């Protein structure tokens, strides 16, 4: 019975459309993680940056009645939080995992703390459609039977994410800046002696990971939900972290991992008809990660100096 339903569900385009949307939502923070860790700074604060981005996106959109400013506001908020992480990890050479967890808790506290105050107790009502990132069908492409709805009838930001993946891959592996980023992540002192400004590269990478996570927040609050709820990211930042490691710290690898998670997330509601409790089905994405992490991937190779604070004036 289960396999029969699964077989039936797997071929529906609607499943894959949902899977890709969840994947795109996870992919932004995962890419943020990739670029930050490639430069040698551990970043597990994507959860917090996404949440603050979702909050700021809605606040700015409501205040300025302009959706683009909302998205920008979300990215800037994510970037600012990332800046804090960068200062703490790079200049103060603090423990990067602890700072990441601190940022996640701070984001949760700040958004819940500011929400009633900034809306003087009323909370936020659902945004009207003018303030929401619409779905967009790419003209004729959208009418191709299976591929059409899956690939070409997605939220606008979905296409932006696809663009970002390709751009990031090109940046990291095909440009001089990418060469410097990878060098800084693998052997910062070698990069320093070659004249690369290690701190500047790491700052830029960590802040851009914040921008990407903030954008993901906007995608969630302005794109999908059209509202801001307390703690609405619900742990997706941590799944993005797993996707980054599972994807071997590469943009396309992370994209593949996010599709696996997206599929798990999309499958669990659709298999409810098989009588298995919704709770057990919800463990699907996490089980998939464990099996994948332990099974085929196992030895994921983080950049050599990932997480090791760099003291430039080493003798």
């Amino acid at each position, binding site marked *: 019975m289960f396999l029969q339903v699964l077989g039936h569900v797997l071929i529906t385009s609607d499943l894959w459309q949902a899977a890709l949307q969840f994947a795109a939502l996870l992919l932004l923070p995962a890419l943020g993680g990739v670029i930050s860790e490639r430069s040698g700074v551990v970043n597990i604060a994507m959860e917090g940056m996404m949440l603050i981005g979702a909050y700021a996106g809605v606040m700015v959109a409501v205040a300025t009645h302009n959706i683009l400013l909302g998205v920008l506001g979300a990215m800037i908020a994510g970037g600012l939080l990332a800046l804090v992480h960068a200062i703490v990890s790079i200049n103060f050479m603090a423990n990067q995992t602890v700072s990441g967890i601190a940022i996640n808790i701070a984001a949760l506290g700040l958004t819940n703390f500011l929400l009633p105050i900034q809306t003087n107790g009323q909370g936020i009502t659902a945004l009207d459609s003018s303030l929401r990132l619409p779905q967009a069908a790419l003209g004729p492409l959208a009418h191709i039977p299976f591929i059409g709805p899956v690939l070409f009838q997605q939220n606008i930001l979905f296409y932006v994410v696809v663009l970002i993946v390709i751009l990031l891959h090109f940046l990291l592996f095909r440009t*001089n800046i*990418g060469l410097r980023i990878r060098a800084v992540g693998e052997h910062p002192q070698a990069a320093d002696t*070659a004249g690369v400004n290690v701190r500047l590269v790491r700052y830029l990478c960590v802040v851009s990971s914040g921008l990407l996570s903030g954008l993901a927040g906007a995608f969630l609050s302005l794109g999908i939900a059209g509202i801001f709820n307390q703690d609405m990211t619900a742990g997706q930042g941590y799944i993005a972290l797993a996707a980054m490691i599972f994807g071997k710290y590469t943009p396309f690898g992370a994209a593949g991992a996010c599709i696996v998670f997206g599929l798990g997330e999309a499958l669990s509601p659709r298999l409810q008809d098989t009588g298995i409790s919704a709770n057990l089905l919800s463990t699907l994405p996490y089980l998939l990660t464990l099996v994948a992490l332990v099974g085929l991937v196992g030895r994921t190779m983080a950049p050599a100096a990932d997480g090791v604070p760099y003291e430039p004036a080493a003798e």
Partner: protein
Amino acid sequence: MQESTVVTQRPASSSLYAVEMREIYKAWPGVVASDHVNLRVRKGEIHALVGENGAGKSTLMNILYGLVTPDSGEVLINDRVVHIAGPRDAIRLGIGMVHQHFMLIPPLTVAENIVLGNEPGGLVSGYQRRRANEEIKALSERYGLPIDPNVLVEKLSVGQQQRVEILKMLYRGADILVMDEPTGVLTPQETDDLFAVLRDLVKQGKTVIFITHKLREVLAVTDTITVLRRGKNVGELITRETNQREIARAMVGRDVLLRVEKEPARPGAVVVQVKNLQAQSDRDLAVLHGINFEVHAGEILGIAGVEGNGQTELVEVLAGMRKATGGQITLTEVKDGVAGPAKDITNIGASNARIAGVAHIPEDRRESGLVITESIVDNSILGRHHWREFSRNSIILRLKQIASWANKLITEFDVRTPSAVAAMRTLSGGNQQKLIIARELGSNPIFLIAAQPTRGVDIGAIEFIHRQLIAQRDAGKAVLLISAELDEIRSLSDRIAVMYEGQIVDIVSPEATEEELGCLMTGSSIVNEV
């Protein structure tokens, strides 16, 4: 030191000195690395900067290269005072440096490593692979440094990696080339090739500063010498007008004991028997191909050979830290001349090996020999914490006994430390090494493995450690000494086994000449046509 006559046969170029460093002062808390040092290097010359370990050679050059900012003093390049805040300034001024630990990035290709920081097409453009490869090919032809730009650095041999480092400097158009202990990892033949390249570079107008503590090389290739001791400039000499003994005396300030006084060894019964030992490296490549040797009671067997020929793996297998994939190791206790039963200690694990009587002074003291964030007391029982003396049925630690044991080690081996509970990292390199030796010898082992026992240790400690090794030998222990310092091997060992590519090619007497050992170490035949 009086000013020695300055003679140069090259045409006096416009500026007299390519590099001049005046009154450079740099002190870390507790030690003065550079004490008002003056350095003058003429353009188009190979200048040697000599001094023994810890004399401040590296610090001085790191200041020149901008890695370290001096407390006071000024640097002149081509007679112009310059301010070098970091490597980027140094590179702009035409200074290039090859460090002791290569500043290369293993997972990137040779071309990427060379152009890093100076990429063709500038920061914004894409990585121009073709153009980079062409430029590097041209450069390597011009300076006789053949290398394939597309291979990953992690696949290169040590000599090739050094060549990439040099190309990296030349790619940036460096005129002043600083090389920090470049021959440490080279075979004698590779060293000669390097000297040929350096002479060629100098002909083309480059200036080379060559840091070393090997006097043979200084005489072979350099034009002028600056000697450093304890961070001070104690002498500037002309190579042609001086000799090894004079330089050594300047380096050490007193007649250095080139030969350690020791009576001839009286080897007794065989303590350690190694038969057809095989083992694999971390990357599962076979690295020990059937090693056979014995070490007798009351004998020091030296293992000579260039690093990377399997010595590290051999030590780890003997100490039980690495699995042997073939062959056998047996240990026999010799009590006043009478050999007891032979025990097979192959693959019994490090702690059992220690119980059986093996002691191991590790190669990388800070890496595996110590836990530097812990106290001396904690470090004094590393590896023996579950012995009866230190823990009741190897579970409950006996803190009082451990504390008295630590104090015994400290007093017996004269480890200078504020107190037994100070953290290891507050101790100097020499004192850390003394504590390790004290710990290993304290449980009177029957077989002592000493790997690079005097690396990075001050001269006083070196003599102390050598006397300890001799004392252990005379007390009837079997001692296996592994060292990259040929002089140390030749002065301490009773027999010298030369290792090359995972095999013992020959066992010779300590009187063997440098050339003879050099050939064995590089696998070429005894007769080498110079």
